[in-house]
């Protein structure tokens, strides 16, 4: 299980990376916005995407839409971890096909819960 973490702040990437490691996900890669994330995704080895919303260049919602529009990438589970908490934005993310939405500041428990829920759904759909 290889996870791509996309956030423009290196500290936040590090926090998420450490929490994921505690949850047993040790294979992670990082990108600092959608523009740098897409080529990594297109290389084809990523199984799970964790992304922020507000980033320079390509934002998280644009990245999510790009992933869902790409025939090869569209089934990758996407978890959004962001400070964006407007009702309309959460609805937009849901409509764009997000699999989970965690608002910052978040707890390790919340992150764990959402990731587990996403995997439960994927397993149930199999």
């Amino acid at each position: 299980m290889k996870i791509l973490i996309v956030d423009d702040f290196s500290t936040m990437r590090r926090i998420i990376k450490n929490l994921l490691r505690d949850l047993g996900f040790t294979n992670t890669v990082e990108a600092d916005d959608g523009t740098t994330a897409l080529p990594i995704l297109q290389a084809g080895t990523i199984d799970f995407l964790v992304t922020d919303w507000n980033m320079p260049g390509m934002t998280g919602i644009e990245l999510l839409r790009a992933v869902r529009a790409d025939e090869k990438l569209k089934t990758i589970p996407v978890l959004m971890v962001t400070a964006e908490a407007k009702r309309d934005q959460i609805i937009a993310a849901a409509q764009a096909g997000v699999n989970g939405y965690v608002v910052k500041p978040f707890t390790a428990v919340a992150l764990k819960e959402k990731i587990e829920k996403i995997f439960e759904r994927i397993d149930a759909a199999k």
Partner: protein
Amino acid sequence: MSNELGSGLVEFENLVKDGAKGLLDHIETGDFSGAIKIIQELSEARHNSFYNEVGLLTRSLHDAIRDFQIDSVDLVSNGTAHDATKITDASDRLNYVIETTSAAANKTMDMVDKSVPVASQLQSQARELRKDWGRLIQRDLTPQEFRDLYKRIDVFLAEADENATTLHSNLNTILLEQGYQDLTGQVITRVNDLIRDVEVKLVHLVAVAGRVDSISGIEHEENELAHDDTRGHGPAINKQNNPEVLNSQDEVDDLLSSLGF
């Protein structure tokens, strides 16, 4: 200051009123060259009062920016900050905030990364010893195992002492790192003051620009900027007063589940 800024415009308004009367008089008496002269004078006066107002405003805005000083210049730069414009300076200061908070966060995480294995080691050693200690209480140990346990406890106590000292020192480093809050708080307060100051001048500029518009008869199309959620808004401040912003993960979860998630 606002009186000074507005006075030119009041003068100009009076000039228009007087000019209008003179204009009518000239037209009624058939003196068209006199009338055109008045129109030219009014036009000139309009330009002059406009430029005067803009000049005064520019000066007061410039003053506001020049007045912006932060005592602790040496915090961020080598003292050349005085030569830079204060807005550039403010922007440098905010970059300093980003760098300082980032350094503190990384240092804190370094200390956590160093402490976690120490705590794990203490935990696993204690668990191992506790198992054999339990057997000792049950009188389930051979004399050789007892002698072995005796030594291991001595090693463990020495290591526990050392590990606790390491943890103590790491926690202290984390504590001291929180000093960034004080330093960045001071910088942000200063930048905030500059913004408030500039805002007051800008509001004044808008007010005067409005008066200039009303005198010159210029009308602007009102076009409200479209709200673009795509770019994001950053963390919501004052969430409680904004019904559009959700306050917690629970509210986000409720919204998502209402959407069939």
